[in-house]
């Protein structure tokens, strides 16, 4: 057999796998099979304490595997096939383009958190400035493909949509505010490289491997993400299982509703935030236990407080910037939570 034919067969097999994964998702939709877990908090009362994690994990894994498989496959494919040169080419070309790329395109690159800080630094140094850099930093965890899919499937597509829009506004706002301050400008000047990016473009000649290798690399990356995230996700699930089983509804109903609920959710959602999808699962349980949707939105907007990222960013820009963007993000999370609650009537 010649090499060309082998490649074609490999492409066909890999595409078949992708279609099967998509097909599973569509099939479950048609058959109205819930991809989110089905246990209600009340169901836990019949289990002993040591049984709780098993039932909870089983409930999640038996229902959510299709959704998780799809999410990781999709994340791998999107990451592999988004042209990364675009960011290098256009990032230096002006403020508006900078914000647009920072908010709209960059999130696709950052399903893996290790790429976030380098990109932040890159955007800051190449002349797009501190505004787009911060927009990117705040937007990336909220709008990456994995988070959107899981929020949509486990919670609701409404809240996933609202989360994207609200995060976008917050991210741009924080970026614009910080870029207007005098210390923000000082930091920007300090870091800017004067020569611009004109020389940079000449030294980039990306090679594109053949389609079968790209597909393999996409699936490998999906697998890599799963390996990075799933262990934390499973540990998170066990903890959430206990929270769901043992926190009485009255506590959640009295503390996580109304204006107090939004405030409290925005404060505890922050430090608990980990970029591992656990915030979605915990949010879902609290929603079942009676948390208001308004508080849920504030809860999900905790991404600016991702502590490892804050530390890494502060090394580049010092703490002032970090504390300020966190403050803007917190104000936004509270205001949008309240606003959302008023609009949908679930405060």
């Amino acid at each position, binding site marked *: 057999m010649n090499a060309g034919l082998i490649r074609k067969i490999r492409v066909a097999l890999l595409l078949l796998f992708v279609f099967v994964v998509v097909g599973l998702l569509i099939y479950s939709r048609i058959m109205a099979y819930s991809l989110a877990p089905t246990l209600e908090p009340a169901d836990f009362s019949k289990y002993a304490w040591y049984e709780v994690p098993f039932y909870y994990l089983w409930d999640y894994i038996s229902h959510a595997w299709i959704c998780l498989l799809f999410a990781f496959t999709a994340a791998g494919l999107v*990451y*592999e096939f988004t042209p*990364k*040169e675009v*960011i*290098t*080419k256009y*990032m*230096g070309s002006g403020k508006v383009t900078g914000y647009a790329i920072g908010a709209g395109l960059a999130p696709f*690159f950052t399903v*893996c958190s*290790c*790429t976030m*800080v*380098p*990109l932040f*630094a*890159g*955007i800051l*140094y*190449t002349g797009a400035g501190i505004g787009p850099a911060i927009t990117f930093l705040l937007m990336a965890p909220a709008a990456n493909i994995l988070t959107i899919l899981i929020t949509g499937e486990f919670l609701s597509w409404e809240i996933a949509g609202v989360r994207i829009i609200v995060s976008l506004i917050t991210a741009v706002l924080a970026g614009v505010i910080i870029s207007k301050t005098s210390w923000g400008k000082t930091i920007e000047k300090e*870091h800017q*490289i004067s*020569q611009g*990016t004109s*020389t*940079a*473009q000449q*030294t*980039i*000649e*990306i*090679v594109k*491997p053949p389609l079968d*290798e790209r597909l393999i*690399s996409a699936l*490998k*990356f999906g697998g*890599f993400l799963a390996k*990075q995230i799933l262990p934390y996700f499973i540990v998170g699930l066990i903890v959430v299982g206990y929270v769901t089983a043992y926190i009485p509804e009255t506590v959640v109903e009295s503390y996580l509703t109304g204006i107090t609920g939004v405030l409290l959710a925005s404060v505890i959602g922050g430090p608990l935030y980990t970029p591992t999808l656990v915030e979605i699962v915990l949010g879902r349980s609290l929603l079942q236990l009676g948390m208001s949707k308004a508080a849920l939105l504030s809860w999900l907007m905790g991404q600016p407080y991702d502590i490892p990222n804050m530390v890494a960013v502060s090394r*580049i820009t010092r703490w002032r910037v970090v504390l300020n963007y966190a403050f803007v993000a917190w104000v936004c999370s509270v205001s949008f939570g309240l606003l959302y609650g008023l609009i949908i009537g679930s405060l």
Partner: protein
Amino acid sequence: MFFSHLPRRINMKEVKVEVIGPEPACVRCQTAKKVVEKATEKLKQTGLAIKVEKVNIISKEIIGKYGVLVSPTIAINGVVRVMGRVPSEEEIGKLIKHAAEKGV
């Protein structure tokens, strides 16, 4: 080094391979570096002179030279060839050979 006693071919300049990623290196950057090292190991035995360097992505020098990069990035003789993915050993081998013959 170990292979320095082997005769070098004339007209073959040293190929410089930069593996660009954050410090401390992320998991995928470490994998990328291992792949590059494996590939160069084999090529060195054929008499090619190759220098592999691990470079920090968050430095003004690198960003000034290449622009905004997605890690892991691999640059050969000062030209970015691979960005945001881990290439196969075979692919890197080909790229280095190409650079040794044509300069880029």
